Every structure is written in C-alpha cells, then in structure tokens.
C-alpha cells in the first residue's frame, strides 16, 4: 500500500483539510466516542451548575432526616406530619377533625365548645416541622375553624447521608471536584511531561541519561508515601492533591514523549530544520512537540480517569479532600462504610464515577483510533 491515490487534478477541487480535521471527521463517525463526549459535557455542566441550582446546599445538615433513603417522596412524609400536627394542635385543647396535607400546607378542621382563640397557633409553631400557623375559615360563632400551617417538605432524590446531607447535591459537588482534579492533574502532567520528555529526547546523550535516571528514581518512590509526606508538610488542601497526582503522573508522559521524540528527531524534516540553522528550541516547538501530540492527546484522555481514580483512592484513605467539601472518592468511601444499612450512599456516587470513567475511556479509545496515522 505504498501508492497514494491522489492525482494532481484531484487536489484542486478537494477541499483542504489538516490532519486534525481528518481525525475529527473520523472521531465523529465513532458512535461510542460521540456519546461519551456528550455524556461528559452533560456531567461537567451538572458539576458546575447543579450545586447552584439545587435547593440544598451541599454542607447543610438536616438532623431530622439522617439516612433518608433515595426516593421521589417528599420529607417529612404525610404519615409523619399527621400525628405531629395532631399532637401539636391537641395542646390547644380543641377537638380535631379531618387532617389533610396538600403540598407544602397542612390543614386540620378544629372545633371547640368555646370560641377558638387564635393564640393556639403558637403550639403549632413551636414544632420544628411547622411554620406560619394560622386560623382560617373561622365560623360565625367562632366554635369551628381550620388550622393551617406551612410544612417545609424536602425531596432527597439520592437520599441523605449519615449526617443528614443531600446525597444528590454532594454527588454533583463530587463530580465538580473530581473532574477538576482529573483535568488539572492531567494538565500538569501534560506540561511537565511533554517539556521534560521532549528536551531529554531531543538533546539526547548524557543529558538524556541524567534526566531519565532522575525519572527512574522518582518512579521508585512509592506514590502513597510521597503523598503522605506532602500532606504532612503542607497540610491537606485541594491544590496539593492535584499537584501530588500531577507530580507522579508526568513520569509516564515524559517517557512516552521522549520515545516519540527519539523517532521524530531522526526524521528528515528535523534534519532539514537543522540544516537551515533553526535553534533547538525552535525545532522542539515547531517540529517535535506538534508531532508528538497524537499519542499525547490519547494518553491524556486516559490519564484523566487515572487521576480521578487516584484522587478517589487518596480520599478513600482520608488523605484527599477535606470534609465538608467532597469528591466522588470520598462519597464512595462513606458509602462503603454504610453499605449494609444505606446502600444508596454507595450506589449513586459509584455509578456516577463509573459513567465518567467509561466515557473518558471510550473517548480516549476513539481518539486513538481517530489519530492513528495507519488508517490513512
């Protein structure tokens, strides 16, 4: 297959396309990759805007709804409101008729032998559940009326955790934090690894040897030990986590880029640039680094899930994000501790993380296929 099927004439009417555009066309044909991309964008938007739109702040504790299971039902439940309402009104020594609950209001028919004093609303207001209690539809003789009170009813679609916090909001915050750490750590690994690897590979010889032995030394440091050291010295913080992950993941990137650079620097276009007197930095910037990008992009998309997993591991071990801020890893760790009694604490964050990892891996695979020059 050495023949190129492009005669001079074909070139003239065919529109111009760069290698990148070609890859994009191929990627678009890969259904799994496109779906993954859409899912990722949707999840990222959820992570960014979800917590703002959610009625529950992620760190708000509802002591009365600890470990509420996931459901569409509103809390408190109607079954809980009725007796509470009843007992609150009873203190006003009135006879209670029918109690109805509609949405955010509870109504009870009340009657008495004496005219009803509207001060009995205080008894209702004293309860945690009710607010803004009032008497309505007072009959002309003042002996019967309706007691109306607002009930704040909340929905916890993913349930609440052991402290009574909304798992849905916390999961959305978790997506935000995990994606941010994944992206930032990968970005850091990208910048460090590409520069380091390209310099080492291009300069070659002794410089290369020294630089790569340094990488080998870093490789031999246990990751967890390294992170614990960092945490001990600098305390736990969000920035530290992605620095820690970036600091370990750039080693792979440096090796990949160095390998690529070694082959690229033997290409004739590099030699042509040398023959023109282009500086080493110019060659690195214009020729070497752009041509390593294919494998590098693929590696980055596979690095993001890896970084997310590492962050999850750190958080799981208690070295990661500080509560009440949370990440998917931390949520899963909590969920694992409560797996028997409150499975929803584990299921929802775990499913979310799995979806993110699936999508990133599919996208990475799709990119690898799209960028593979052998397909040309």
């Amino acid at each position, binding site marked *: 297959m050495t*023949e190129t099927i492009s005669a001079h004439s074909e070139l003239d009417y065919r529109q111009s396309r760069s290698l990148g555009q070609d890859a994009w066309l191929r990627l678009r044909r890969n259904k799994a990759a496109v779906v993954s991309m859409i899912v990722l964008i949707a999840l990222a938007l959820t992570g960014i805007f979800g917590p703002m739109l959610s009625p529950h702040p992620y760190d708000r504790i509802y002591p009365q709804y600890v470990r509420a299971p996931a459901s569409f039902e509103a809390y408190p439940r109607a079954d809980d409101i009725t007796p509470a309402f009843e007992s609150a009104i009873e203190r006003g020594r009135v006879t209670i008729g029918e109690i109805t609950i509609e949405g955010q209001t509870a109504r009870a028919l009340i009657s008495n032998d004496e005219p009803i004093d509207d001060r009995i609303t205080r008894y209702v207001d004293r309860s945690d559940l009710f607010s803004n209690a009032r008497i309505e539809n007072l009959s002309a003789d003042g002996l019967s009326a309706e007691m109306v009170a607002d009930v704040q009813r909340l929905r916890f679609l993913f349930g609440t955790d052991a402290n009574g916090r909304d798992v849905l909001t916390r999961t959305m915050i978790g997506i935000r934090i995990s994606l941010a750490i994944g992206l930032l750590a990968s970005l850091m690994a990208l910048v460090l690894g590409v520069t380091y690897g390209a310099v080492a590979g291009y300069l070659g010889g002794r410089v290369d040897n020294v630089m790569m032995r340094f990488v080998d030394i870093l490789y031999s440091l246990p990751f967890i030990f390294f992170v614990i050291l960092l945490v001990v010295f600098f305390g736990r913080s969000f920035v530290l986590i992605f620095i820690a992950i970036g600091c370990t993941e750039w080693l792979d990137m440096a090796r990949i880029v160095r390998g690529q650079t070694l082959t690229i620097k033997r290409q004739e276009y590099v030699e042509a640039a040398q023959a023109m007197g282009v500086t080493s930095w110019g060659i690195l910037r214009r020729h070497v680094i752009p041509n390593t990008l294919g494998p590098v992009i693929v590696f980055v998309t596979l690095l993001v899930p890896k970084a997310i997993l590492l962050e999850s591991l750190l958080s799981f071990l208690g070295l990661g994000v500080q509560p009440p801020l949370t990440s998917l890893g931390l949520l899963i760790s909590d969920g694992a501790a409560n797996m028997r009694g409150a499975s929803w604490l584990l299921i929802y964050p775990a499913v979310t993380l799995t979806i993110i990892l699936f999508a990133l891996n599919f996208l990475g695979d799709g990119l690898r296929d799209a960028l593979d020059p052998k397909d040309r």
Partner: protein
Amino acid sequence: MRDPILKVRDLKVEFGTNDGPVYAVKGIDLDVMPGETVAIVGESGSGKSQTMMAIMGLLAGNGRADGSAQYRGKEIIGLSDRALNRIRGEKITMIFQEPMTSLDPLYKIGRQLSEPIIHHGKLKRSEVRPRIIELLKLVGLPDPERRIDAYPHELSGGQRQRVMIAMALANDPDILIADEPTTALDVTIQAQILELLADLQKRLGMAIVFITHDLGIVRRFADRVYVMQKGEVVETNDAEVLFTAPAHPYTQMLLAAEPTGTKAPPPPTAPVLLEGRDVAVTFRVGGGFLKGPAIDLKAVDRISLQLRQGQTIGIVGESGSGKSTLGRALLRLAPSKGAVRFQGKDISHADREAMRPLRHEMQLVFQDPFGSLSPRMTVGQIVTEGLLVHEPHLTRRERDARAIEALAEVGLDPLMRNRYPHEFSGGQRQRIAIARAMILKPKIVVLDEPTSALDRSVQKQIVDLLRDLQKAHDLAYLFISHDLAVVRAMADHIIVMKEGRIVEEGATAEIFDHPREAYTQALMAAAVDQTRFRRSA
C-alpha cells in the same frame, strides 16, 4: 491459442474515503498465459499494485473489488478467505517491494520458509528442512545450510529478496506476482535479482506477473506489457512491438522519461565555494559494558573534493558507501575529521552558533519527500521556516510574499501554501522541499537522492527544475545518487564511492565512456546494459 491461466475481466477496485469513493482501478481486462512473463507498468497511483492486491484478496480494509478474475476457470473475486487460501500462497504467490519489512524479524528464515510448505500440507515439519535447503540453493543464496538458521537482520537486502523469492516458490506456483521486487535494491543487486527471476522461470516454467514503474527493467524481460494510467489499461502489446512502436502518448512519455542532456563544467576561473580535505567520519559501533571492545566503522575515509560555483559534482555509489554521510559532513551536520573550507573560511571546528549565519548559504534536499516535510505544518510555514532564522526582521506579510515567490519558482500554485503536505503527490512534495531550500538564496545545495523516490516522468521534471534553478542562480550542487541516468544528466564531475573511499573520479563523459576501475565498470554495466535479461524463447 492456449487458455489463459489467469483471466481478468472488467476488474474494478474502489476505496471508501472521507471524500467519497476513490476508483483505483476502473475496469481492466488482463490475461496471463501459462509460463509467460507479463509486465504491468505504470506510475504510482496508476492502480497497478491494487489490481494484483484485489486478485490476491489483499485489499486494505476500505477497499472493494468488483468484476471477475478467473484462475484456471475458477472465479476468485469474492471468494472467502478460507477458499482463497487454497489458491494464494500455493498456486499464486507474491513477492513484495520491501525485503526489509516483508520478513518477520522474530523468526529464523528456515522457519519462515517452512510455514507455507507445512500450511499447504506438502510436507511434515520433520521432513521440510532438505526441501528448504534445496529452495535456498535454487535462489542462489550462498551457503544455504548455514543461512537456514539465520535471522532476517543477518542478511543483506538482496539476500532477503532471494529468501522472499524462495518462499514464493516453495509450493511450485503457477503464477508468481512480483510487485516492484527490485526497486529498493542497489543497481548491481537489482540486475542479479532480475537475472535470477528470468532463470527461475526458464527452469520452472511458471508465469510471472511483473509490476513496475520502470519500463527499462521490463524491456527484454517481459513477453507482453500492459501500460496502466489512472486505473485503466491504456496500451497492451507484445514487448518487442511496444518498445519499438509505442502507440499511446502515455507510453511514449514513459519511454522518453529518461532524463537527457549533459551539463558543461563551469569555467576554471569559477571560485571554489566548498573545499573538503581528508574528510573522515567514523561511527563507533558496539562496545560498552559486557560487549567487548568498540569497533570504529569508517563511513567516510579521508575524502577530498572541491566544489566550484556553478558546478555539479555527482557522488555515485551503492547504499552504505558513505555518500550521504559525506554530504552531511561537508555541511557540518555530522561530526567529522579533516578540514572543510567554505569560501576560504575554515569551518571544520565551527559550532552550531558559528554555523548558523552560514546555514542559509548551504542547503540540503532529501530523498524522501514524505519524511522531509513536517506533517503538522502548512506548506507556507514549511517554506518560510528558514526565514524566521535568517531574516527575522521580515513581517508575516513579507514572509508570505517570499513564500509565493518561491513556490512559483518551483512550479507550484502559490494558492496551495495553506495546505498540508499529506495532500500533495511525491513530485509536488519534492518541489516544496526545493522551495524551502531556495527561499534562502543558497550558494550550495546538497541534493541527497532527490529523485530516487519519484516516478520516472516526475524525476525528469525535477531534474529539469534543478537545472533551471542552477542556471538562474549560479548554484553549486553536490548531487548524491545511485541512479546513474540522473547523475549523467545533472553532473559535470563524478566521484564514485565505495565503502567510504573514492574509487574513481573525473569528468562525467570520461567516467561514463571510459570507466577505469572494475567497480565503476560493474556499476555502469548493471545500470545501462539491461539487454542481458533476454530470455530464450
């Protein structure tokens, strides 16, 4: 008339691409009689290889074959792989262009040869060894008893091609398809392989389908010739008739594509631009911990030359003779010993910084037009890159103007400067590479096999372009090539190299007409005299 052993009717091949289908073969008819040699000739992109790939069921994933191809009356287009495997590899076999990559480097050649024999059930694994030695003897591999246990990397290119041929012959095929079997080889080796194929055919009586872009090779070797252009057969005839009276203009063009003309030497008063004295380059091979002492390999062994303004020195030699290394050493791109003077100034110890201001005076054009252009830069960026270094004061607009000028000078449409190299054909890419060198207005250009990867007709255009540029700018060329026809047309002075040394040097006419050294004579004989492959009918 006998029945054809292979009968192809209305064969079409199309490839699905992002730009819609591309029709590589547009309905061709082809017959191969038992025991005859058929040549399919055409330039790259003419569909000659794809025709045979379609018949062998070896098209790329996005390819589709249509039409009919019958082997002894049995339809083979559209056969399942399983059914096809009973024919290909046994009755129809193939040898490829690239002997370096068509053998698996992990297996000994005996093992590779035994695979097809055992697979097609001819012999058991225990009985196969004598047969392999016999095959290796047949293809003239020296010392077959020892070579059977060699790994591919221990053999030279010519020897590997012999192994490939042995593999193709292993099951006594009826048809041997040879896809550019000699293109990657040196001229002397090329001659030997062609001779071997002619000899084998005489002895074994199989039919050979010979695919090549070089009409010269098939001149006396083929019985019948099909000439293909853009997926169609434009002319077919007996070889004798076709060569004496080509009917189609394309065939005539192919036949006339040999570069012609000679170059007059510059006046003796022309100033010496580049002078090398006792230039030597050694590579240290092996050595290091546990590997024993290092060996110094002399790639270039004390060579002296003078290049004058307007002169073209042709450096000729087979691969591994050190001619490319010499070119790089003279440009200070490879570390070397000895003295190199540029315009009287000693640059043998100049470092990168010191060389930078001189770089634009001495440029380099490479052999491989696919590897020498960065795939992620536009043509405009590639051509103007040198200006960033040597004329940094230019604005973007001025650089663009210079790019337009340079592209127009090498005969390319300047509108194409926003495109990427992969959209261009080989010849166009080579023009881009030349534009990149010319934009800096050099005095010396080292041309390292600039035409070897190109079709004959494109070669001729590039040679003409280089000659025009030389005349226009009074350039000095160092022309490195193994292709004597091109060197003859380009150079006024020739240096013949072998194993890093100068074997012979002199004016072009003198070297070609009266070669003194045996090596030069052998080189000339292999390249020029192709009448030796005449088959006895």
